[in-house]
């Protein structure tokens, strides 16, 4: 596949408030660069992420969606990230079925102390998504008539 130099992907990052959002803040405090294509949405816990939000992002033109939460065992709400992990596994197989490349969705555990890991993860994810190019937009046919 030819890599488009000017292609700027739209990447949505859902970050849990307690670990990953704080990890993202730490990346900022430490001035660790990652592409501006990443936009973060704060959610209280990774288990707040309804898989529908990811499908919605793909409908609206996102090229990649990443979910970041506390490490397994470290969830602020004890068990939230375990639910998130199971739900995302199911979503992955659905996205396979829909023909959205597996690499466009990712789950990563980033603690509040791992600013460097957050930046590395985002750099790597944006690179992967850029390599894949523009995403095929999911469409809700019910909205077509508008």
């Amino acid at each position, binding site marked *: 596949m030819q890599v488009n130099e000017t292609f700027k992907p739209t990447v949505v990052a859902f970050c849990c408030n307690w670990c990953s959002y704080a990890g993202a803040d730490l990346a900022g405090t430490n001035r660790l660069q990652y592409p501006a294509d990443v936009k973060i949405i704060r959610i209280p816990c990774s288990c707040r992420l*309804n898989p529908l939000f990811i499908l919605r992002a793909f409908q609206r033109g996102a090229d990649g969606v990443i979910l970041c939460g506390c490490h397994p065992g470290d969830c602020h709400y004890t068990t939230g990230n375990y639910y998130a992990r199971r739900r995302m596994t199911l979503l992955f197989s659905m996205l396979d079925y829909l023909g959205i490349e597996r690499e466009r969705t990712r789950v990563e555990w980033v603690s509040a102390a791992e600013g460097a890991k957050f930046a590395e993860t985002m750099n790597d994810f944006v690179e992967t998504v850029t390599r894949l190019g523009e995403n095929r937009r999911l469409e809700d046919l019910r909205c077509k008539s508008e």
Partner: protein
Amino acid sequence: MQKIGVFVCWCGSNIAATVDVQAVSDALAREPGVVFSTNYQYMCSQAGQDMIQEKIRELGLTGVVVCSCSPRMHEATFRKACEKAGLNPYMVEIANIREQCSWIHKDKLSGTEKAVLLGKAAVAKVHLNTPLTAGESPVTKRALVIGGGIAGIQTALDIAEAGFPVDIVEKKPTIGGKMTQIDKTFPTLDCAACILTPKMVDAAQNENINILSYSEVEAVKGFVGNFTVTIRRKARFVDETKCTGCGLCTEKCPQKKVPNEFNLGLDTRRAIYIPFAQAVPKAAAIDPNYCTMLKTGKCGVCSKVCTVGAIDYQQKDELLEREYGAIVAATGFEPISMDKFDEFAYSQSPDVVTSLEFERLMNAAGPTGGTLLRPSDGTHPHTLVFVQCVGSRCDGGEKGKPYCSKICCMYTAKHAMLTREKYPDTEVYVFYIDVRTPGKNFDEFYRRAVEEYGVHYVKGMVGKVVPENGKLKVQASDLLGGQQLHIDADMVVLAAAVEPDKSARPLATMLTASMDTNDFFTEAHPKLRPVESPTAGVFLSGACQGPKDIPETVAQAGAAAAKVIGLLSKDRLTCNPCVARSDELMCNGCSACEKVCPYGAITYIDKEFRGPNRTTLLRRVAQVNPAVCQGCGACTVACPSGAMDLQGFSNAQIMAEVDAICK
């Protein structure tokens, strides 16, 4: 339609340097519903806050978006400011354009573009915000301190002093912790026992302090102000209330060959024992792993000699359930195991000891009565080699720890000084990477060791220690002299790195308090909230948060106590109103939400609804207890009918943010 005001902060040049703040406020002014948009140098300053309040009053704003630093930093500030101007605080949203934008992007164009998008997402969210009112929950006015070392004791004493009851849970049969094992303390060289044991007695005698020794925390439920903790009181087979601590049983016990953990296995104790003379509570405990009576049912000497009938071989572990308003973790540290450092021959020769073992060998109450003797043959050592940074400041982290253990430089200087003072015939070498002595009177202390006591400080590491003919052949490099050194030593002392106590990790999981990669507890803010954990109601005291010496530990213990007192002095706490809510008309009572709720906040009631043809229907619907719900949102996704939603992070709000970002 909401009337939204947008306030873009420059944060001095922190934001303004890489984000065109004027362009951001201009772009956001064109968003639907935005009636006012501006930028200002420091939004969080009094002038900035005044401006927001003035605009709320002047324009009747129904929503506010502040584009500034992380909401973790100033969300509360701006919410409070808006509340003062009559706006519901939950109508405020923060767009994080500092930590997650200006600080990480160098290109002003893309930084500005991103800031505009983040602002648009926040505006889109505010459109769907609803005013929320915080509920209240009561506060249990009792604190729990986990760990009875100097950190835990000091915290408990300070809380008790303010009039609140405190429980100390200590896993060992006595409180006192590591400090009880230390001989003298730097930089003043006053004896540790002399300053610690009066505090232990104070704690025991304080009517507000309840010491639960030989106990461990088993489970923690609840939330700030309302914790329910299950504590396991391990069977000590001695009735603590009857035992007078006379010690007769410990003299008569026939099982003499139990390694004495208080002296780090350098001598032995009996199966029934009092850890040390000044133990608090001063009550014996039976070690079930060694007691002949408990193992075979034949002995019973201790119960025969006990004049008060305190021995109870039938005692079982007991589970206590108690309520607390605040919890302080004070689990402390331990030296790392020397297993991975066999180049120093720790496992091959008893004359290679760790610094804590050396501390016992120098202690008047230690196995040698304070006379420094080689553990192998009981002779007086003449040449001693101290090795610093054993396991500290190790790159890669496989073998040791990446951090500086902080206390080793000072205690090694102390050991070297005390050795030279007591035994002027000795030669003492200290091998170091760097000598780090920042602290009041610390550097003076170290210089005294070198200048007055003639300790040989050598910059360089010891490569190998080989036991040979009763001597320890030490091979080391002298970096400043540029030569290899070969020293025939009588004893080698290893300054082992410190690590968090093993009990800290499972405890952190129970408390849902976060830890760093080295298993030290994380503070809520490394500079501004150093004694609070990010989990509300959980506080940190002492070395469980990072390596610390005694003065620092005591200072932090007092600080943690002050925070606890602040919390306990409130009668009611306001709860987070961002909790789940069930739409009863949509709920079908399937119980999916109840199963995933980690707090048991969801219950079901049978409720009457209007049915067809003027009938009434009885339907089972979910109800959320807002005081118990912590707002994680697990239920909102589990709900198959979409009845459950999270206030402040509703489905519609998050979708609106997604839409704004993906446009």
